[in-house]
């Protein structure tokens, strides 16, 4: 399964699932990480973690361990 963690800066893809078995899902989805949304990785922090993702025009930073919870549809759109 493709996850947000695997995207490199500049790449984007559509969200397929949010791993809901852990407490983090609520915060992610309330910020707009919902299935069907396009998400784009903007940059990594200098030490490789966390990363900044763009969703719906807003930029959100999250750790890799959280990016791993966001499953993506295969095949991104270089938008």
């Amino acid at each position, binding site marked *: 399964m493709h996850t947000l963690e695997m995207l490199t800066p500049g790449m984007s893809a559509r969200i397929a699932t*949010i791993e809901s078995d852990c407490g983090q899902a609520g915060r992610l989805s309330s910020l707009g990480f*919902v299935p069907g949304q396009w998400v784009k990785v903007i940059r990594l922090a*200098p030490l490789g973690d966390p990363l900044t993702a763009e969703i719906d025009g807003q930029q959100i930073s999250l750790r890799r361990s959280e990016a791993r919870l966001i499953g993506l549809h295969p095949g991104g759109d270089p938008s």
Partner: protein
Amino acid sequence: MNPLRTRGPVEAEKHSIQVALVGNPNTGKSTIFNRLTGLRQRIANYPGVTVDRKSGRMKVAECEIEVVDLPGAYSLTAISHDERVVMDVLGGRRNMQRPDLLVFVLDATNLKRNLFLVSQAAELGLPTLIALNQMDAAHHNGIRIDSARLSRRLGVPVIETVGSSGRGLAELKGAIVEALESPCFLPRIAWPACISNGCVMLRDGICTLGCAEISDAEILRVLFDRESVYTEQVQEKTQLRELILEVHKGIRSSGLSPGSAEAVLHYRHIEALLEGVIESSGPIARSRESIDRILLHRVWGTLIFLGVMYAIFQSLYTWSGPAMDLVETGTGWAQSVASGLLAGAPVLQSLVCNGILAGVGGVLVFLPQILLLFFFISLLEDSGYVARAAFLMDKLFSWCGLNGKSFVPLLSGYACAIPGVMAARTIEDPKARLTTILMTPFMSCSARLPVYILLIGTFVEPVYGPYVAGATLFVMHFVGAAVALPLAWVLNRFILRIKPLPFILEMPDYRLPVLRNVVHRMWERGREFVIRAGTVILAISIIVWALLYFPHQESVATQAEAEFVQAQSKQRPAVEIEEALKDPDSAISQSLFNHVGAAYIEQSFLGRFGKTVQPVFDPAGFDWKITVGVLSSFPAREVIIATMGIIYDLGSDVDEGSSDLRTVLKNERWTSGSRLGEPVYTLPVVFAIMVFFALCMQCGATVAIIAKELNWWWATASFVGMTVLAWVAAVAVFQSGRLITTFFS
């Protein structure tokens, strides 16, 4: 339904009309709150949690309205303490008054996400009003919002505002009064059958399981949140879980995922609401992207971050100096005036000078650093840089349970732990905040410096030269941090049973800080410190004064004087001594005065206690004088220099550079025990003392501020923990040092 008219004056006193400000973090909610209430504010804690409950009074057209600024929340899913408080207040849980009106403060530049909370809160059925804030920024970003249409769709008034300039505030006030008179409600989302039926099923099930009252909004939380607090009364947890899983199955069979159904449906609802309301003139080149490219750059971003932090630290360290000196001079002046006025009553004189005034001075002396730090923190937060700094630094701290926002508190701890502990409020995650607060007192604060300078200057520099001395001083500054970070890891891994919050951080647009807000925040924090922590610090100061002063028997002075005269008579003729003692300014009179002072401290409760517990510190190589010095410096570690001065017959007027004190320390020898005749201050002892000071929480003010920021349980735990740790480390240093020196000699 008209709170303004129906309530008589008597009732209004009991239940004042309350308006709650609700919204996401970073929407300018606090600015609006300040604008509405001015300085008529009160800060308290919500029951059971250390979340600020800010309230103030707003006067419109002869009626007083209480405005409550609820903590920022992204959703009603009670993930953080802040969000839990919002849900509790809106639901009227835990004896909290339910607001009469909700004013949502929404960020116009990010309307869609901001409406998520609104859409969730619609379930609560409270009268609502919307303030569409930061309209100027939205306009600047090319976003056009048809607020009239939005208002029609939502069925509630929508007022455009610009918090920073105050635009739209008068309209907002008017709208608040109007909404209280004729309340409007948000339309509830139309849930699909699988969810609405599921809710009914869940409610029936929960009622039979023994949960007395639960609202529609709370049922939804039980259904969608992994762990909900609203079913605490339910005993049969497994039955409840089965019930929830059954409803989830129903949701799944209609093609939705229970984990994301709520968010997906709310966002679908919001998209429909916003259809034709928002117009964005394409992605215009935002200035933030070009600023981010530099500030978050691998090399430049890190360098700029270090530069900013260095500048803050330097100014805390040096700029606060003159103000702190002023406080100290002022205290000294007040002490000498009081001393003159109370010369007839020695106990009162000592209480006022050494207890009360020293305590007041000890509180005020922290103010310059607190004000300065919060000046910088406000600038960093309001400009949007804090999120960037946390992004840059997170990885450095995440391994031990802290996060990127721990950097500022820990760094401030190097100047003073008190503003550092207060600065930890910027950390949302309760676990990381707790850990950061507990680790901040380990940072080598400026009060430790005099002790290091005295000991290194006396025992290291003369023997090993300035380079080794400098290196030792440098290393001493990292002893605390080197112990603290692994300790934080252990705490997080094995001891603290708090669920950490995910580190999910919004990167807000850059904004120009508003001076008004910055000053407001400094004032707020300073006032809070003086009122809440100040009283405790003052109390500690008076208690320790009493322990060092009483019993203060006259016989002690008489005996000390006799001893002194006898010792002196071996060196010079008795007539000469008598003559010199008549003049209170003569050298002999001064040293008699100091000798009596030392005798009083030895005979004081704390002195006797120090002598009794000296065996406890014996394994660290401390004699009773060091022990008393260490004990008397528990309220404030810098006190040790003055106490040492008194104990060694030099009077309290010594500092870390005093050559008399240095000479006395060098010549001090054991007068009893197995080490009789050996010097007290050998290198292992010197290092044991320094390590003890590096790790011990000898600061009543820090204990007080931790008690205030967390609670007394944690304050006590960290005090005891750090003291034990310091003792263990001092013993380890002394014992291994002694082994090494015997091995090499």
